[in-house]
């Protein structure tokens, strides 16, 4: 799950799992869990709220954009006798400005399926409307057998397999040094040697496509590759035996 934009407030069962990425792409601000007085006075405290509602939304008028506010203790004494406060505050509201929206689990009551569809649809339509140069990013995970951790690359940064290959080589150079023994540092400086390493029999670049199949990198045109690549794996040569023929077979079956 992408980091950074968790909208869930209370622990909330199943929360709003659509959160994260889609909201980011829709240009949503960081969660501002404010509800109530428009103009957003930071002086805190009283807000328009109902009992129960306040248990799901942190109503501290924080202007900072911390995504996670501590939930209100549901047994908080302050919540009782709210009606009076509410009536007072109602008269204080400036009806011309609508209150800032707060995010509540399960509100508005729209099926998750619909939320997801609309989120995807707006991504697509905004990228259609733009000049077609593909403004969206295409970050995919890259794993290399034997490496202790994975990396991520934005495929849209490159326009050819060659460029991607270079980038990957640089990224994973630190891991291949060990294999090169004493020649290590020299080889790192020698780009072509690295390329050979990556292109040679030791490692085979493969990718997972939209159908979930593992394919050999390089068969299809670059643009098609970018569209369908979900993640990259740089396999050890020994494991990749038989991969290429299988990939071809699958293509034949599908057409």
């Amino acid at each position, binding site marked *: 799950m992408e980091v950074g934009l968790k909208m869930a407030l209370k622990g909330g069962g199943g929360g709003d799992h659509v959160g994260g990425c889609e909201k980011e792409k829709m240009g949503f601000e960081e969660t501002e869990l404010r509800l109530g007085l428009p103009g957003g006075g930071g002086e805190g405290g009283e807000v328009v709220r109902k009992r*129960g509602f306040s248990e799901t939304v942190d109503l501290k008028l924080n202007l900072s954009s911390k995504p996670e506010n501590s939930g209100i203790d549901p047994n908080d004494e302050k919540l009782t006798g709210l009606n009076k406060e509410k009536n007072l505050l109602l*008269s204080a509201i400036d009806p011309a400005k609508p209150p800032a929206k707060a995010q509540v689990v399960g509100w*508005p*009551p*729209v099926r998750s*399926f619909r939320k997801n569809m*609309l989120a995807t649809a707006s991504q697509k339509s905004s990228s259609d409307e733009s000049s077609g140069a593909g403004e969206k990013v295409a970050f995919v995970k890259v794993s290399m057998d034997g490496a202790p951790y994975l990396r991520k690359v934005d495929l849209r940064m490159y326009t050819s397999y060659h460029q991607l290959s270079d980038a990957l080589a640089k990224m994973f150079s630190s891991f291949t040094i060990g294999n090169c023994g004493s020649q290590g540092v020299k080889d790192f400086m020698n780009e072509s040697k690295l390329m050979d390493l990556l292109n040679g029999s030791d490692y085979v670049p493969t990718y997972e496509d*939209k*159908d*979930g199949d593992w394919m050999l990198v390089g068969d299809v045109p670059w643009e098609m590759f970018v569209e369908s690549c979900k993640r990259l794996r740089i396999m050890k040569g020994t494991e990749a035996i038989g991969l290429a023929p299988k990939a071809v077979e699958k293509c034949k079956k599908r057409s």
Partner: protein
Amino acid sequence: MMNYFPDEVLEHVFDFITCHKDRNSVSLVCKSWHRIERYSRRRVFIGNCYSISPERLIARFPGVKSLTLKGKPHFADFNLVPYDWGGFVYPWIKVLAETGIGLEELRLKRMVVSDESLELLSKSFVNFQSLVLVSCDGFSADGLAAIAANCRFLRELDLQENEVDDHRGHWLSCFPESCTSLVSLNFACLKGEVNLGALERLVSRSPNLKSLRLNRSVPLDTLQKLLMRAPQLVDLGIGSYVHDPLSEASNKLKHAIQRCKSIMSLSGFLEVAPRCMSAIYPICGNLTTLNLSYAPGIHGNKLTKLIQHCRKLQRLWILDCIGDKGLGVVASTCKELQELRVFPSDPFGAGNDAVTEEGLVLVSAGCPKLNSLLYFCQQMTNAALITVAKNCPNFIRFRLCILDPVRPDPVTNQPLDEGFGAIVQSCKQLKRLSLSGLLTDQVFLYIGMYAEQLEMLSIAFAADSDKGMLYVLNGCKKLRKLEIRDCPFGNAALLEDVGKYETMRSLWMSSCEVTLGGCKTVAENMPSLNVEIINESGQTVFNLDEGQKVDKMYLYRTLVGHRKDAPESNQTYLKCRGDLTRSDHHEPSLNDMIKDMKLKNISGDDDFIISESNNFKLQSQLFEKEEAEIMILKWKRL
């Protein structure tokens, strides 16, 4: 008189009675009718899959051919129910298969459907014809492949808004060449690619195909080919609709669409370039149903222009980017409109484009036949609701969702009690109501007083005290489903009349004031109810103090006790105090019994559970009164 007809005649008469409610009523008239109805019943509706077991279903209706099952509570749609809560269809299919039932149709809503269940389904019922899945999850394209491959006489495969893991598109290729019986195919909710060649061939060999809804991956040229092969379509869901209006492809499409003179329902446009909409103008004049709620790409002028061509529209689903002005166009164009749904184009609630009360007032003025509404809006006023109530007294469903859930009337700063009060007072046929905005106990007083036909009520962030809930429980005699979130209703309201819940399908209360002790009291006094508690805070229910509030409570009537598939975090109680078989100390009079029956709404329910209840045994007596013979039923408690 009726007593002297042979069974076959009665059975023939009953064939004409198709509505669930009526069949349930028929079955309660007397023993012989009960028996005849039982054996001749083909379609059964079960509103809560945990209210009865498949074994008992079959024991009662051995001839069942069509089964409708609903699983998770409605609020599961909004992520309020844990994913592992339940609602599994597999046990049903297994039992039906084992007892040799000739199942032909299965309709599921909010249930967990595994690939194994689909496979078992496809292999167990030779004459299986129709599968409809709405808001279900748990299956992948492999399950669909099994259905396609094995159901030789499949007529309908209708997938609506399901979460399907479908990264493999080969399931369409699994329809054998011999399958020519398809009438309805809807895979709009699938995200993955499908084998286009297989799709074309399938459509070509399905002369009875009337309804076809494609997903996003089906490109324009395929659409054009499909339309050429299926000009008899009545219902079309377009997947991808992106083309250059000046191109040859666009011309071909126009020509293909024009041949489809029978299309009355149009939906989809999951990917759309709005300048291409003119190609479908030729068929707009015939449309009675239009669903653009997944097409945020169509808005502004293009949208209103499109709608201006749709004069016969009865059902319209759109996004709020239509705006109040756009709704004005709807009001002046769609005089036959009965159902309107306006969804938020930004479902995360920012509501920048949202509609307001103005749009709704315009539609109510222009569309007098309006009877069903789902309206997500920025704001609402009492004045507007009062006007709407006056203009449209025929509402059966009225669901209003103000994006800010506690927003008062922005003009007067008052709660929306009076507005909703006007709605329930004016709309005497109202069966379903969803409230939002700032609301006090007053609105519930109105609902209890006026909403006599109300069957389902959804409440969120409303009321001041237990009184609100009590007004509803006491007043709404036909209430079947009550779902409440974030309201100050506690044990006093919950426990006032626990017998009432036996007349209802279910009650949901989350983030209210109800405590564990309150829930336990219900469970201990009502063996016919399951009381389930879902606690999010990580504490198991056993660790809860009786005085502690429960996060979520879901209670429902059942004839089969607590379910065995509940996840551990979710506890159901069935501890009953004393004897299950309480006996009455006196025989109630006939009038009392009939009155009691009316109060318990026994004959008005589409759910056959009430009539199946163990607590009653039927006795029928025939009285003669003047020239007429009257059959009276006499109830006797076990």
